[in-house]
């Protein structure tokens, strides 16, 4: 193997030795490039961060105040110890990036999480040609086939309208970061008022502050007792299911928006009424499309149905292997309905700690490079 290994797997995460930096490390390191603000990729505790500019306000909600975060626009090339580094839109959530690393003409791309379907809340996926492609494979089985989002939004709107006619409130669960905003951007806000859980509202604020247009939403906890919610849409993180918070809304129909809803068993395990197949990850066909189009002659699969994707690619004549990482993809969405006691601290119903505006100066003092 003549090509050099630009990224390797270490105990702390994916590491570029030549540039001495990590990508989405799971243990504290000196310098970390963060592909996007989901908690399995953006972990606190690192000394310096580099991330794509559009996602800065999201990242600030995830990292400790005063963290040293340097941002860079998509496509702008930096040189880190002789290694050329640039970030390219991954189309996953606002500010999500693929990391392109080039040294001596050898190009590696680390995908982070990605989807290729357009998303009104973030920049579209950019295909980056490379020699080695490190890809996710959250939905790397052929059973995962997404229908166009227009159809899914129609389904959601029809469900909401039907519930309204039946005098029910519609509670829709989805990731607080990304999925919730994509849902908001796609629903027909004419149907009725939209309320949010605190975790969603906090991130809505960060999205709006980043210039993303979302329909009006009201943080449910600010409403007086006795408010009637029938006919409204309530957007909440999955962890809010089966919490006392849910009792506020009277008679509800519940739904969940996730790629996992493609499987009937996971839909039933969530004990929800409806499942909408809406994912911020690439489906089987899209994964295959992207892998092929990158032109990579070596593919490394990080998470999801990794072993399956590796075997599939090798049988197709594309050299593939896997890295065993601690990324979860949408796996945590798979959790069965939680009990009231174990609500994720990250997703409590409090909109406090809106993106920190302070500490910007520290970014200037301690730079990634």
């Amino acid at each position, binding site marked *: 193997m003549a090509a050099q290994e630009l990224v390797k797997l270490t105990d702390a995460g994916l590491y570029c030795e030549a540039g001495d930096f990590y990508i989405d490390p799971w243990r504290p390191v000196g310098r970390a490039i963060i592909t996007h603000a989901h908690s399995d990729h953006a972990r606190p505790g690192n000394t310096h961060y580099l991330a794509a500019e559009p996602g800065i306000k999201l990242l600030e909600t995830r990292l400790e105040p005063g963290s040293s975060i340097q941002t860079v626009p998509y496509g702008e090339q930096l040189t880190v110890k002789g290694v050329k580094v640039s970030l390219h839109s991954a189309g996953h959530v606002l500010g999500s990036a693929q990391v392109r690393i080039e040294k001596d003409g050898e190009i590696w791309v680390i995908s982070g999480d990605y989807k290729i379907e357009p998303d009104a809340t973030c920049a579209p996926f950019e295909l980056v040609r490379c020699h080695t492609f490190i890809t996710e494979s959250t939905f790397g089985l052929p059973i995962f086939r997404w229908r166009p989002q227009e159809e899914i939004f129609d389904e959601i709107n029809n469900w909401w309208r039907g519930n309204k006619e039946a005098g029910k409130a519609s509670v829709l669960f989805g990731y607080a970061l990304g999925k919730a905003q994509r849902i908001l951007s796609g629903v027909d806000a004419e149907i009725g008022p939209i309320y949010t859980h605190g975790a969603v509202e906090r991130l809505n604020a960060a999205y709006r502050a980043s210039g993303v247009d979302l329909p009006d939403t009201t943080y449910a906890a600010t409403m007086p007792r006795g408010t009637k919610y029938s006919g409204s849409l309530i957007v909440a993180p999955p962890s809010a299911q089966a919490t006392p918070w849910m009792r506020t809304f009277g008679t509800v129909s519940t739904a969940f928006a996730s790629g996992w809803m493609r499987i009937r068993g996971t839909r039933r*395990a969530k004990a*929800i009424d409806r499942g909408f197949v809406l994912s911020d990850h690439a489906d089987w066909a899209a994964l295959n499309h992207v892998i092929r189009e990158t032109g990579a002659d070596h593919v490394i699969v990080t998470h999801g149905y990794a072993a*399956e994707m590796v075997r599939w690619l090798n049988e197709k004549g594309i050299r593939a292997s896997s890295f065993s990482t601690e990324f979860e993809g949408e796996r945590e969405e798979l959790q069965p309905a939680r009990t009231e006691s174990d609500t994720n601290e990250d997703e409590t119903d409090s909109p406090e700690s809106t993106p920190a505006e302070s500490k910007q100066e520290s970014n200037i003092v301690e730079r990634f490079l």
Partner: protein
Amino acid sequence: MRDFTNLFIALDETNKTNEKVAAMKRYLESATPADAAWAIYFLTGRKPKQLMQIPKLVSLAIAAAGLPDWLFAESYDATGDMAETIALLLPESTKSTNQSLSEWVENRLLPLRGATEQAQYEAVLSAWEELNESQRFIWNKLLTGAFRVGVSQQLVIRALSQVSNLEPAVVAHRLMGTWEPTPEFYTRLVAPETDDADISRPYPFYLAYPFESEPESLGDVHEWQAEWKWDGIRSQLIRRGGQSFIWSRGEELISERFPELIEESNILPNGTVIDGEILPWKEANVLPFSQLQMRIGRKNVSKKMMEDVPVIIMAYDLLEFEGVDIRDRPLSERRELLERLLRGLSCSADPQQMTLTERDLSAPSCQRISTRFRISPTVEVDSWEAMAEARGNARTLNVEGLMLKRLSSPYKVGRQRGDWWKWKVNPFTMDAVLIYAQRGSGKRSTWYTDYTFGIWDNGKLVPVAKAYSGLTDEEIRQVDLFVRQNTLEKFGPVRTVKPELVFELAFEGIAKSTRHKSGIAVRFPRMLRWRQDKPADEADTLETVAALLDSQNNS
């Protein structure tokens, strides 16, 4: 087919039983009797005999989907449902059908049985061609004979009861036994009155709830009849029109498995229905359930088998007497008739001399018209303390505990609280180590939920039990993660994991077994709790667990 698929979607899209019942009612009201009959047939879990061999169906689906075999297998592993896997993997559909359910079943589905392989392939391919994705799923479900949609028989009965304005118990009874899903059947099912007595039709079983509070809460002990909770096959023995039938609780006709009981039932008068438990029994003792299991596992009951594992019916109740349904009479009255019928005097056990199996069941007062039909002995005590004490002796009698039945209770339908309780003895327990894990099926298909546990034997872990239930969802999530991160080897769907996690297992009984590596078989194992405080090397040993054999009467 379209309306039936929509019914399925409606049932699948709600968790609320009232909405499920309403959806079925809507469907039944607009369906033709022919469609309604088939819908009821499938919704109550009935299925046609195998129409097509599953491996053939799978290879056809694999070819149609254009995938390697292993990828199909991985996809199946992820969904846990063959019909669904096929529906999800077939090339996208562009059509859908308007033809009725009965047309699809009678003209397309049933003719598959016995057709040539080529004809089957063509018929299934053209069916897939004509159906949309949801309809394909339903078709596959019907084809694989695994149509379960999350509605219980009770809910179907409720819907039918609303459609027909009949009492649920009447509908439940009419649905029992074997019937053909014809328009005539459906019309009779919802008709105000019918006189079509099918002589083999059993009554719905009345099932007890587990009793978990203090017995004093049940009031005066003298208002209750207490019996032992026997561990066999709950059955109904029917004698009508010179014929005999035995039904299991799962509504399976099991007459052929017990020729000696059928033969012996000739002595019963026509118009008799007995509710009881089939037990393996030798002389004055009940044998371990595993022996009965071995016997029912055989297709043909050999003479030797009948000699090695003789069976009896332990009669609990009388449901029909002299051709009259007596289920609404009080238990005390039914019991008297049962005793009269089986010509016994009251057969009771003295709790002061807890040697019931030896003394009381062979006592002269218990001799009856046949040694194969025994009356379930009652436990006569004057206080709940004495009752609790009696329950404590259950293990030595090889019974699971006590049944408490209110003497004034009618024989109801299904599992209901209030009048009948099962008061089991506390289970055995052991601490065992998780050694293999497998993904569950249905809604647990993406999680490692099916576990095999081992206990120590000379420094090695030997598999001793499989268990699937008892953990909270959060615990399942944690164990699932552990399994994924600590897999040592994969054998098909089974993963060998690092032997680290210890669980306290509960089980109801233990028996010697030549079929298990450990030499023992435990009954109804389940996880009681996750012993996160316990390292694997402190789990139980085969020696200590096998010692429990002696606490039972395994003679």
